[in-house]
């Protein structure tokens, strides 16, 4: 187990470092000179230079990078040069909205993904099979934003069942909160769920071919038990990993979904920050998005290892 983790750790670390570097470079890549932004449009070259020194922008990049990482690690996320507000505050204000969305979507994704997958996994032939296959493929092929827009057109415009934009925190008003949450969450979850379903289904089909399933049959084990303790048990790993990866995608998908459904989440913050060149905010959001994605993935791998004795015990 430990050995397994040790093996995985480097790639995780690498991932984090790369992300940090990219995030750190973002303002410098896009924003031009932060000092200029602070100084404002009608500042003299001297003022700008002064500010540059005061902000430590004149020092070599590696030094600045090290310092920045240090700050972020110690929870100082910096200050937006555009709105002069601490980034932590800006993000904090939006976190809730995105969490509500992401959590709901993830829950939906897992439930629907596993549900569909197992359903497809146990219906091997006939019309229902074809139906499931079709459904999964279609969902698979349509990304969140398209799904979202279609949902809006159907439930928001044609039938006017749901409010299409805006939001209310579920904690303030559960009923209305969810009425705002339901469509974006579904939009986010559906494609990912389909992905999981497809993988689980494929894996189950694969496991069914394994000889130990035949052996179980030869033992006289009833089908339901074979499904549970042999087929499903051996397909679990796939499901876990799949979910792990997908959660990252949900976070990313939130960007577009929030824009479409006009939710004031981190995604929206990221977008508005980019168009207003507020890169100090963008960089932190990017950093967080990736870090979370990576960590979740890593976690899922640990879980996988825990599930599989071959990895758990040695390897």
């Amino acid at each position: 187990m430990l050995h397994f983790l040790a093996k995985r750790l480097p790639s995780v670390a690498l991932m984090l470092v790369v992300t940090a570097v990219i995030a750190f470079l973002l303002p410098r890549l896009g924003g031009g000179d932060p000092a200029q932004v602070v100084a404002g449009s009608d500042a003299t070259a001297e003022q700008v230079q002064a500010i540059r020194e005061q902000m430590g922008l004149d020092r070599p990049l590696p030094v600045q990078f090290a310092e920045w990482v240090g700050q972020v690690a110690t929870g100082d996320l910096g200050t937006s040069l555009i709105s002069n507000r601490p980034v932590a505050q800006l993000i904090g204000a939006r976190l809730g909205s995105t969490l509500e969305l992401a959590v709901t979507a993830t829950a939906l994704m897992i439930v629907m993904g596993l549900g569909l997958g197992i359903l497809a996994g146990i219906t091997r032939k006939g019309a229902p099979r074809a139906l499931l296959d079709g459904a999964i493929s279609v969902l698979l092929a349509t990304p969140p934003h398209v799904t979202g827009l279609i949902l809006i057109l159907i439930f928001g415009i044609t039938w006017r069942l749901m409010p299409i934009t805006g939001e209310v925190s579920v904690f303030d008003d559960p009923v209305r909160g969810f009425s705002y949450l339901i469509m974006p969450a579904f939009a986010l979850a559906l494609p990912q769920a389909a992905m999981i379903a497809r993988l689980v289904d494929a894996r189950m089909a694969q496991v069914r071919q394994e000889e130990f399933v035949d052996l179980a049959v030869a033992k006289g084990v009833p089908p339901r038990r074979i499904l549970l303790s042999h087929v499903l048990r051996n397909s679990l790993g796939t499901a876990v990993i799949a979910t792990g990866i997908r959660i990252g995608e949900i976070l990313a998908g939130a960007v577009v979904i929030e824009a479409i459904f006009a939710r004031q989440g981190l995604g929206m913050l990221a977008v508005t920050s980019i168009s207003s060149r507020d890169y100090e905010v963008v960089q932190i959001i990017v950093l967080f998005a990736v870090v979370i994605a990576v960590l979740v993935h890593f976690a899922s791998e640990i879980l996988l290892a825990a599930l599989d004795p071959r990895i758990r015990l040695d390897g």
Partner: protein
Amino acid sequence: MADDILLSVRDLSVEFGSAQQPLRVLHDVSFDVARGRILGIVGESGSGKSMTAKSVMGMLPEGGRVTGGDISLAGRSLVGLPERELRRLRGHDLAMVFQDPQAALNPVKTVGWQIEEALTVHGMSARDARARALELLRQVGIPDPESRIDEYPHQFSGGMRQRVVIAIALANSAPLIIADEPTTALDVTIQAQVLRLLVELRARLGVTVIMITHDMGVVAELCDDVIVMYGGRVVERGAVADIFDAPQHPYTRALLRSMPQIGGDRLSRLPAIPGATPDLSHLPPGCAFHPRCALAEEVCRRTVPALSPIPERPQSEAACHVAQREGRLPPEPAERGEVDAAAGRSFGRAPILQLEDLRVDFGSRRRLLRREPPFYAVDGVSLEVFPGETVGLVGESGCGKTTVSRAVVGVNPLSGGRILVDGRDVTAFDDAAAAHVRKTVQYVFQDPYASLNPRLTIRQILSEALEQRGLPAAEREAECQRLMEMVGLDRGYLGRYPRAFSGGQRQRIGIARALAVEPRVLICDEPVSALDVSIQAQVINILADLRDRLGLALLFIAHDLAVVRHLSDRVAVMYLGRIVEEGPAEEIYARPRHPYTAALMSSTPRPRPDPGAMGRKTVLGGDPPDPRNPPSGCRFRTRCPIGPLVHPERRICIETDPALAGDGRHRAACHFSGEAARLAEETKT
């Protein structure tokens, strides 16, 4: 036959595919199994032997269905029995042992759990089940069951896993056990262990066994009765003794004769069966064997012979028009003159291929924390091959024989030692050396299905080789045709793609490709082990012919001692990356000086009925140790039948690593090489 019949199969027919154009895989298969006896079902790929077993278990793959006949177990018909009824029978009244112990166990459940499951699903309480599981593990000879019962399959060796699978089969002491190629995936020494276990169990528990195998040897040593299957039909049926003594179906006879025998005469040409095993979807009309049968007559092409007793040998039945008409199977038309190739074969004086203290290491990959130590897959192997000579390299899987051969042609990088080709040091394997090796040494691969690029025609494949030889494009076509004829293939096939050929033919093409560059050494890596028994002889013969005709030197790698013995002038036996014995074939097989060699030989099943042979065999215990950390001293000591295991006083085996020693040509790496020979003697009758 014996009085009380446990299982009786009558006119069983099985079909696949749609009702419109069904694919019939079993044609009126009939046989009985008497209580307490072992029935062998032999046949090559596509003969329908596994399908027979599956239909008995009621476990036909999707789309398969019994379309005729009946299966009755202890008088109870299984055909058309509702699924839940069958389920109650499975594992309780009939159990099955599968081919591949790696795959047959659920990787995420402890072996205990898996044995107990077999019991609990048939209504045993969890506590009793556990007790029983322990007992079973003990029965199948798993040491220290109490602790191992809670381990996972991957912590067991191949042999041990197969024992677990057997334990599961025994769980509810089912009267009938069907073993589907239970030893095919195992090494010879492990195979011997498992076979012996089966014999013991049979003796102890009186279980009835159906043994499905392709190996006549296994049948001869294990079974009481046998049915021979070919093209989805039973072609011969009877007691093992009778059938091996005087087979009444041309196929059975040809099969037996075409097998090189560990005891038989060497270097003579094998009577090969022409052609390839039929493909069930395109069975020849009439007797499925007729296209390959020397005795085939008009009637054979038209009507399917019934399986019926042969007038002069009523105890065995065969499905052959000729035999039935003649009253017994007439002898084959005279064999093509058996040239004794041994005569007139002279070897060059200077070795054409010379390996000195060869080392190849694997692993040693960078890890995060530590760099794991390299382990030698090949650890100091020295070997010489003289022009025109054939050297057999024998050993079980993982002993490093293939690694050696690939190192020679530069596929595996060396980490030590020297390679001389035709006296020239090519260890560095720079371009010049490589070029030299290329045109001197060529390679024939094991898997005929993987060794030809499916996207290229035979012509393209051969010309690619000729191109390397530097033959101008204009002359290649002619050369291609010459090569095809050399390996006995119709030149007309040049335009085809590999998929159009049978395994045997592909292997010939592989040989032709190797010969295209006119090498002087041919390295054959298990060239026949992937082939059906009836095909092997063809390839072996071709190799022999070419060797003699072109004065090639062969480095012949195989795990099957019989085949090696048949071709080789000298033999080297490898164990755990070392050569443990080396010498002239005759001597080694007659008087092995290394216990391992002896054990190998006695483990190899002989296609000669020999009741009680099992008892006399020297069967090695345990499994080959992990090459990553080989045992101190003699690497074989952990399994050695004359080593510290039986003679604790022999510390020397533990302390010092024996070197290859002995008179000039026959050398062995054993401190007690004298005793090995005796070991071998005991085995012989």
